[in-house]
Structures are given as C-alpha cells and as structure tokens.
C-alpha cells in the first residue's frame, strides 16, 4: 500500500479510496482517485446506471451579509439577480482584462447569502480575488474546510439518493438545490453535475463523508452503482463539452472565445472584466473553441497543435477517446472564421499530421 506524499492534500475519503483499491494520482496538488474499476467501465456506469465521485477537493466560498448580492453580482459574469432562493447558476470569475480567474457555480441560499463552488486548484486565488474586490461590507468566507462534496450521477442517481433522504428529489429542478439531510446528516442537495447525466452534488460535513459515501454505494448496489475516479469524470465532461479550467479556459481566454457567451450578462450592472468584454464584442474575437472528431488514425490530445491547410492555426484543449461514441474526440481553438463544423483540420500527433474534422457540440446529449 502506497502512502500519500506529504505535500499532497487529501480529501476526507482518502483512506477509503486507498482501502478500496483506487489508483491514486496527483491532481493539481491533491491526492485523488483517477480510477477504480477502469475509466471505460466507470464511464459506462454513469451513462447507463450510476456513478459516485468524491469531489471534496472542490472549493467553497460563502458570501453573506446585506451586501452579499452586490459583491456576488459584481465579481461574476452571470446575473445573480436572476437567481431565486434555492437556485444555482454557472458563472465566471474574470480578471479586468476579461480572462478567466475561474468558472464557478453560484447558489443563492438566501437574499443575503450566496454559496460558491469553485475549482480545487483555484480556490485560494478565487477567495483572494473576491475578497480584494469587497468594496462592500459583505462577509467573504473561505469555507472549503467545512465541506466534503460527493457527486452521484447517472440515470439511477435519483433512485439511489432517494433512499437516503426524505426530500422529494424529483421536485428539485435542474440547477436547483435544497438544504435538508442525507442519511440523517445535514446536506445541501443540488441537482447539478459535470457528466452530462442527471444527478446530484451534495455538500456535507467532512466527518460525515465516509459514512455517506458507504451509504450511497450500498443504496445504489441494486442499480449497479460504481465508485468513479477523475479519469471518468474527465471523459464524461468532455463528451458533454463542459469546460475544464487550465484547458478550455484560463487567464488568457475570455468567455466569448470559450463559447461561453451565455454566462455573460452585459445588460446587468458593472462586473469585473465587463469593460474588456465590451471591447472584445465591439472588435470581434480572433479565436474560438470548436469540437473535432479524428478521421485519421490517432488521438488528438491536450496541447497538440492544430493545422489548417498546412499552417499552424490553433491547439487542442482537451482530447481523447469518447467511450460513448466510440470515436476520438476533442476541443480546440481555431481562428474564428474556421471555428465552425465541417472544417478539415490536421492534428499534429508526434510530428505527424493526422486528419480530423470539426463537428457540432456537445458530442453527447442525454435523452430527456
């Protein structure tokens, strides 16, 4: 049995993952399970039945007080004013120059309380970014230590979780949440996810994580639930064209370039990055994210160059096999005039051009 390196951070379920035989990797400074039974197996479990993920590495930031709305709305791109209590939205935290600090989920807990779920490796930076812009008197709390987070995803997620809570899960709309209990422990139950399937993300106290993890696996046994690692999380989100920080988005990419214009509300009040985005709207973007499918033999992967007519024209942000489609897929940046479906491109794979074609996204959309 290997031990985590001292420098790596661990979730409350670290020992459980090791005991259950997960293969562990260093993920942005966190000692996390990359796979249990295998990425393909876990991927199919989520698409067909249910999968359980430990995503306790994700960060939480709480904004509260009379100025909670003003601060939340002024640091995020989406309109926090559109949120009702019990509703969540996908949003962006931007620098003044319009590039991403992070992509986040904003939950409205009360008129004076917003709960943000942020990326693991960005959480310290995000907290500082928000706190530095607190010209209001809102309270900004770095709340990650108070939460573990589990994601249960797949067509059988609801039936599994329903066994452990009295809340009528079917009545929670997509991107809505309720504060209730799971297995008797206080839990925020959100109908959100990063897989393209129906499912829930639940926020619980760290000391409850192991008990609830086990309860979920037991409850889902009859449906074929599988514990899943970050490997399947990545193939699932890529098929659904969900952005991953450090890949599709980062400090030098704006929401418009990342095809995330829908999370920017220019008709709301001022927010950090708005002026830069207005300028970009006026001048037009130079590059844009687009999906591709390999037509030649090979797999286009993160960081590979993309060629158009023999010239270097862009780069792959995420790429790999799609277990659902049985094709090799990916996302890449291309000059905006060519960032549309049907373009013949070449991906440079170990110095060899391999044919691919741009395609509509998402690659996978579940039947509703």
């Amino acid at each position, binding site marked *: *049995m*290997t031990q985590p*390196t001292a420098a790596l951070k661990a979730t409350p379920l670290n020992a459980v993952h090791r005991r259950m035989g997960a*293969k562990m990797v260093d993920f942005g400074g966190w000692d996390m399970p*990359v*796979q249990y039974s*295998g*990425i*393909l*197996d876990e991927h199919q479990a989520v698409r067909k039945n249910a999968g359980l993920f430990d995503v306790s590495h994700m960060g939480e930031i709480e904004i509260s007080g009379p100025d909670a709305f003003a601060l939340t709305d002024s640091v995020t791109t989406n309109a926090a004013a559109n949120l009702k209590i019990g509703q969540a939205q996908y949003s962006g935290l931007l620098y003044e120059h319009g590039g991403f600090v992070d992509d986040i989920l904003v939950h409205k807990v009360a008129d004076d309380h917003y709960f943000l779920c942020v990326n693991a490796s960005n959480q310290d930076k995000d907290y500082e970014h928000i706190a530095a812009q607190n010209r209001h008197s809102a309270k900004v709390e770095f709340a990650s230590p108070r939460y573990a987070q589990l994601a249960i995803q797949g067509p059988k997620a609801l039936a599994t979780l329903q066994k452990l809570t009295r809340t009528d899960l079917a009545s929670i709309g997509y991107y809505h949440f309720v504060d209730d209990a799971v297995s008797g422990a206080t839990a925020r139950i959100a109908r959100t996810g990063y897989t393209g399937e129906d499912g829930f993300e639940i926020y619980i106290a760290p000391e409850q994580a192991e008990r609830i993890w086990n309860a979920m696996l037991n409850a889902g046994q009859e449906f074929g639930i599988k514990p899943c690692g970050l*490997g399947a999380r*990545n*193939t699932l989100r890529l098929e659904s064209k969900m952005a991953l920080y450090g890949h599709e988005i980062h400090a030098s990419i704006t929401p418009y370039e990342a095809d995330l214009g829908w999370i920017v509300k220019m008709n709301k009040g001022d927010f950090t990055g708005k002026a830069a985005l207005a300028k970009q709207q006026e001048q037009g973007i130079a590059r844009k994210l687009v999906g591709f499918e390999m037509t030649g*033999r*090979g*797999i286009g*992967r993160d960081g590979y160059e993309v060629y158009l007519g023999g010239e270097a024209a862009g780069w792959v942000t995420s790429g*790999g*096999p799609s*277990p659902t489609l049985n094709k*090799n897929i990916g996302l890449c940046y291309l000059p905006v005039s060519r960032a549309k479906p049907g373009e013949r491109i070449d991906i440079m794979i*170990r110095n060899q051009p391999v044919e691919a074609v741009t395609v509509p996204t998402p690659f996978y959309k579940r039947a509703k």
Partner: protein
Amino acid sequence: MYPTTFRYTKEHEWVRVEGGIGVVGITDHAQKELGDIVYVDLPKPGTRLEQGKTLGSVESVKAVSDIFAPVSGEVVEINEMLSTTPEKLNEDPHGTAWLVKIRLSLPEEVSRLLSAEDYQKYVGAEESGH
C-alpha cells in the same frame, strides 16, 4: 506472473528470443499502470530500431506512453491485431498481444536485460516506493 523465459527492461517491456528473432511486448505491470488501452502505434516492418530508443507508443484513455526497444534490430513483423483490438493488451500482454518481432542485430544485448526475478523485485519496489 512474469515468465522466466522472457527478459525485461526497467521501462516495462519484455522480449522473448526465438532463433535470432526477439518477440517484444509490454509487461502486465505496464498495462495495469496504463489502464484501458485504446490505441497502439507501431513501426512499419523494415524499420531499424536501436536499443533504448522509441519503438512506438501505447495510449490509454488518459495518456500516451512511449515504448522503448528492448533490443536493437530490424522490425520483421508487427501485431496487426492490435490496430483493431488494442484492448487485448490489457487482457494478454505476455501472450497474444505481443507488439513487434525484431531480427536481433546485437544478440548480446539480451543478456544485459533483467531476469524475471529481478524485474519482479524491481516492480515490487516501484509499487511500494511512492
């Protein structure tokens, strides 16, 4: 686990020599570390390989790993089966899922590779060492 008639490298390739031809593959340890294998890139027959230099690559869902030639020589045959069923590398890495056959140009290289016992010790140490 590791056949005693094979020789091994620290990069997790194996070679079995039959009458001047080395049959080359990756070890069970390697396939386990890689996870689900989805693509195998092999050299064309006729390619001359040098011991320790890149022979090709194996791709899992997550990543690409180079394979290094355990011996020098000319590729005389590649395992065509792997182009359509790369997952065989997860199932039978020491048997039907061999990668290439190489006509050895320096047969003495083989004796400097690890024995099954030494390789077993090496991966045992690697597995508990980090």
